[in-house]
Every structure is written in C-alpha cells, then in structure tokens.
C-alpha cells in the first residue's frame, strides 16, 4: 500500500453527514464542498444509498448502532466521528463503530480536510489488514484439510510415506490445486465414507 497520502480522488466523492439539524452543520457542508466532495445530511436514518457513499461523518452524541445497516465496525467506507461529549461511553461507542478519524465539535471548517485524508488512509490500512488476515486464515484451514486428506489416503493405501505424493498425483490428474483436491477427498469421505474412486 502506498504510504504517501493521496489527495486526488476526493473530487466528486460522496459524503453523508449523519447528524441532527444544527446551525453549524452548514459550516461542515460548506467545507466538504470546498474540498470537492458532494455532501448531504441525514438524520436519524441513513438512506439506502449510504451503502455506496465514500465517507460517513456521524454524530456520536446522539448516534446509536441501529442507524447503520452494517455490523458495528464493518462499514464499507471510511467513517469520521463527530465528537461532542467526551464521556468515555461515547468515545467507546465511536471506536466500536469503527471511527477512522474524528472531528471534535463545535463543527468547524478546520480539520475537515485532514480528517478525510486520515480516515481514508486508516480505512485502507484496516481493509488491507482484514484481507490479509482472511487470506492467511484460508491458508491455515487449507493446511488442516490437506493433513486430513493425507491421513485418509494413508488409511486407504496403508502408507503414510506415499500418501502426500498420492495427493499431489491426484491434484494433477484432476487439474486442481492440492488444497482443492484435499477438499474433494475430505468431502467425499464425509458423504460416502469412501475415497473418490482412486483404488
């Protein structure tokens, strides 16, 4: 991932400000538009179109979980908390909802650009980490499947030593990866209690 903060791409980005009506909201909207974003407000419900927004800025004073159509901390876009009360419970909620940056109220123009860049950077980092964790999990679980498949094959042929080689031969014959071949063997043995016609 690039370490340099990328400014381009904010033009035309869609921001939804989830905040109750307030005089100072206009200052925030003006600043978002000055930076080049399309900004709209919503309260108390997010519109269905929020799912494709590029940024969500949300009030942590009156906000609650039910306002978001995704699981807490699983937003598909960067989230910026608009923090008034610094009561620990509210900060905890901001953090749990997955705030990637925060702006302290009263709402103002200053800090908006910085928080957009910070939020996007930290969201991208979070996404990249989650993707990497997912890929590693898949690989770990594939390894377990291979071990299972090898021991199934060993039972059949009576040789632990050649079972791994057998699995490789099968994968080649079936034109798939060893991981996928292992999945096939384990599945087959689970449904029929037998190996897929190899002997």
């Amino acid at each position: 991932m690039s370490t340099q903060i990328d400014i381009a791409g904010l033009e035309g980005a869609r921001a939804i400000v989830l905040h109750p009506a307030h005089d100072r909201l206009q200052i925030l909207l003006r600043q978002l538009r000055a930076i080049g974003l399309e900004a709209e407000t919503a309260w108390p419900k997010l519109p269905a179109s929020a799912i494709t927004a590029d940024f969500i800025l949300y009030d942590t004073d009156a906000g609650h979980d039910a306002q978001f159509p995704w699981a807490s901390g699983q937003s598909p876009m960067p989230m910026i908390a608009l923090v008034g009360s610094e009561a620990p419970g509210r900060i905890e909620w901001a953090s749990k909802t997955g705030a990637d940056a925060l702006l302290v109220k009263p709402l103002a123009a200053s800090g908006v650009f910085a928080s957009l860049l910070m939020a996007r950077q930290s969201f991208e980092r979070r996404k990249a980490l989650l993707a990497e964790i997912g890929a590693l999990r898949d690989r770990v679980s594939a390894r377990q499947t291979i071990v299972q498949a090898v021991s199934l094959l060993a039972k059949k042929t009576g040789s632990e030593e050649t079972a791994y080689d057998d699995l490789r031969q099968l994968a080649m014959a079936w034109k798939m990866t060893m991981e996928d071949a292992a999945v096939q063997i384990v599945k087959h043995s689970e449904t029929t209690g037998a190996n897929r016609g190899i002997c």
Partner: protein
Amino acid sequence: MSKTFDLGVLYSRSGTYQLLSEALFTGAMSAIESVNANHDLPVSFNPIVRDPAGELTNYAPMCAEILSSSNAKHVVGCVTSSSRKEVIPELDRAQATLWYNVPYEGFETSARVVYSHAATNQNILPLLGWATRHFGMSVYLVGSNYIWGWETCRVMRTRLEAADGSVLGERYLPLGDTSVESLIEDIEKSRPKFILNSLVGASSYAFIKAYAELGQRDPYFASDNCPLLSCNLTEAELPVLGNAAEGLISVGPSFRKNPTSNGEGSSLERTAFQSVLTLAEALAHGASGPFDSYLAQHGARYGIDPATQHKSLDVHIAQVRNSAFKILHSWSDIAPDPYLTRPSRHPKFSDPMLKVVQA
C-alpha cells in the same frame, strides 16, 4: 447618493517582505482613490490603515483593532500565510472578510477570506509541469522556514517523486536570513536540472545574487541550463535585484509588457487594486450581512468560485529577459483547486514530461 464604508488596510510598510506589501498597499490605496473619485459608484471607502511592520505577532491585535474601532467589515491585507492564519480568528469573531491578494500554497478555504491571487493549481503545479518539460526531472528545493516555503516545496517533492523525478536537496532559511554560502555550495555539488526558490524577501535577494555569481563562475548554473524558478517573484522585486534577475522564471496571473524602473504594475498591485474594485461593486450591488453568504450566491459574477472563495485566473510562465518578464507559456481562465482534489482544473500540457535517461 454615495455611502461610505470603512475599509481596513493591513500591510507591513517595513520588514523583510516590504517590497511585496508596498506593491499591495499601492494597489489597494489607488483603488480606494479611484472608487472615491468615481461618482457613478454609490460607494466610497474610508481606509483604516494599520502597519504590522513585518512582525507576525502584530497582525491579530491590529486586525482586531481595525474591526472594533471602526465599522469595517472588510480588510485588505496580509502577505505571509502565517499572518493570514493569525487574523482569521479575529475575522471569525467579527464576521468580517479578508481580501488576500498574494499567491499562496493552498489547502485552506476559510469562509472569512477571499483568495484573489493564485493558489496551488494556479502556481506550483503549472510551474513544475513546465519546468520538468524544459529542464528535466531533478530539482533542488529552497524555501523560507514557514508555511509557504514548506508547502510549495512539499507539493513539488511529492508530485515530482510520483513522476519518478528526484529531489537532490531541500533547505530552509529563517525569514530575513541572508547567509546563503553553504546553500550555494550544496547546490553546486548536487547539480540539479532546476531550482525552486521559495525564499521570501531579503533571503531571496541574497540567494538570487549569489546564484547569479555562481552562474558566471560555472556555466552549468547559467539560467538557460539550470534556472531559478519562483512562484512569488513579480515586477515589484526586479529593481532591487538589478542584473541578477536576468533569467529568473516565475509564474503569475499577469505580467507587465513594459516594466517601470520602480517595479510598478505587478500582479500583486493589480490584484489588490482589483479586489477593492470588486468589493465596491459588490457593495454597490447591495451586498450586506455575512459576505460568504453573498459570495455563495453571487460570487461567480466576480469570477470568485463560490465553493472555495478563490478566483479563476489566467496562468503565465514568464522569464526575466532584458529587465522585463517575457511570457513563455500561458493558460487562460484556470478555475481554482486549492486542495488539489480536482484534476480537471489543473493546467494541461500537450507534451509528456522529460524522463531521466540513466547512463
């Protein structure tokens, strides 16, 4: 019947960037004169003049004093970005507006400021694009040690590095510092293709003179091979530079065809002049209440982008030849993009950047 408005004028008449503020002051005051002499305009101005004398800490109290001791809701003033940032809280308190008439580094859109001179995509970007096409992809960055120097150099660095160019050195001098010897030595060693000079005032003059001498010692540093580039050099500073100005390259919204010996008619002077005229027109048009609300509705008729309160401007690259700026490349009517988020507003080039050829 003419209505008289108090108008703050906040320029430093002494100090290291005096030549710039003098040009701005002249522009503002002659515009006030011309508005007051124009009986077709139902508006006249009563200037409330304060002189911060180049001291950063004077700006906020003097701005506050203008706003509290008179009915002024508008101030023309400030040269450095630091001084502009100093007065914004005072303007906020009084819901007043600053007309800022100097090129600056962007990344700001205060509702209390009209940014009339060039911002990021109207100065640094076109200058960089032009220089890399004519001289090459390696630069040495020099600046005064405050926001203007840091940000112009940062934008150059990130843009150039993103295009596989290189920054061979980056040095900052305190405002007013004129000891440039070690800087010149470092440049002599690093041999860049061009140099960005974001120094201001006395530091800049000392550096430009020393660099001109270097160019005479070593033809590599002659202006046709390795020029000095600036985003803030105007006619106002040519008299003090004399022959050392030959070959300097600058970017700006306007340059004079026939310069005068005292540096009149720079884009600074013209911008300050135009800002006061624009304000007079807006007041004649009935602007009242918060000026940002007025601009949000009517800004476009004055060429002011309502979203950013920056102006659409022509952009010229020019070089000093025989004591006058000669325009080398122009774009007209470039809309402002102070945050560099709108690539569609960036000046376009028809030819690609020069690539470094490795031996």
